[in-house]
């Protein structure tokens, strides 16, 4: 169905690797699934979001020009609606995580060094800061100012729980991985190490495979 996109001449050639519309949509779906199933906020993919929005605009424009009543129009309409749903769902998922873990997300962004990739887009960062300020203002105005002087602060980093990285996730292996350390060696047991074959599916602790998700070696399902 994504091939409907490649009928149109809209190209997003301004990025480093030029993708066909079909590849872009496939990448969007993969990124969306990873973000949906991961317990923590993943790396920010602003360029991809921009490309998809451009693609949607091209598709909408082309749809205006198609003769009304043409059956193909409805299929293309569905395609546009589907892509918009996936994109919205992806952005919603990210925003929900930003709201849920706002002090930790902000702390991570502050302590990140220059060269490291950002987890938040500039807009998400602004949103997170506003959310934190808004919530602190509210708590202060309603409750904290009535409390004794030494209790008028709430440490947000302690008050708001961190994402649970030890939860289990389903994944499919895209690139073969060897010697993944599942359980470290302790007094009671030897270390438990597995090889992940390409195409195989597993249920593992997120913490173990987190770096593989960011590198694209596994896909969360």
């Amino acid at each position, binding site marked *: 169905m994504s091939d409907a996109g490649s009928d149109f001449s809209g190209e997003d050639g301004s990025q480093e690797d030029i993708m066909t519309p079909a590849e872009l949509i496939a990448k969007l779906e993969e990124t969306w699934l990873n973000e949906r199933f991961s317990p923590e906020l993943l790396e920010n993919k602003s360029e991809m979001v*921009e490309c998809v929005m451009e693609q*949607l605009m091209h598709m909408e424009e082309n749809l205006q020009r198609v003769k009304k009543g043409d*059956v193909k129009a409805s299929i293309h309409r569905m395609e546009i*609606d589907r892509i*918009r749903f996936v994109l919205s769902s992806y952005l919603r998922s990210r925003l929900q995580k930003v709201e849920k873990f706002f002090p930790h997300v902000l702390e991570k962004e502050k302590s990140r060094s220059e060269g490291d990739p950002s987890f938040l887009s500039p807009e998400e960062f602004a949103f997170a800061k*506003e959310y934190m300020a808004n919530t602190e203002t*509210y708590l202060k105005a*309603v409750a904290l100012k009535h409390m004794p002087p030494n*209790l008028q602060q709430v440490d947000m980093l302690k008050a708001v729980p961190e994402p649970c990285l030890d939860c289990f996730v389903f994944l499919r292996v895209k690139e073969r991985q060897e010697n993944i350390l599942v359980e470290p060696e302790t007094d009671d047991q030897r270390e438990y190490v597995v090889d992940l074959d390409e195409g195989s599916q597993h249920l593992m602790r997120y913490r173990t495979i987190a770096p593989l998700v960011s590198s694209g070696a596994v896909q969360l399902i």
Partner: protein
Amino acid sequence: MHRVHTDRLCVPFHPIKCGGNEAKCEGKSELIPTIKFRHCCLLRNQRCVAAYLYDRLLRIRALRWEYGSVLPANIRFHMCAEELEWFNQYKKSLATFMRSLGGDEGLDITQDMKPPKSLYIEVRCLKDHGEFEIDDGTVILLKKNSQHFLPRWKCEQLIRQGVLEHVIS
């Protein structure tokens, strides 16, 4: 009810406020474990109050996603002024964020909450059939020779009955 609740929770804090300083100044060090214990209780109460208030905020946040920017009057009645202020600020932050997405107009991510399922077809009305309601609540007037873009499964029966004709041009 919300305001009264918070006030009652905060009242127990007041008498205890001064106790700690006095004990330190007068050198009554045997009171320190008691003061520490009281402080733990106060911290716990502070946590409870904060948890209650934050839970309300989360519900108010959910209202933006469910009802949109304008809240019904009966819900606003249950919110205090600070909560309304929080809601307005949240709305603004969200709107700024959505406007910044992609191209000129941004993307309203509070729409498209469910995957699209319906496939629409173009139909022409062969006879007057009166009003016809489709899934999202809109009412279409099926007048003879009018054309409409309607969900397929809604039309199937009418097509079978000869009221509508599927237009394939």
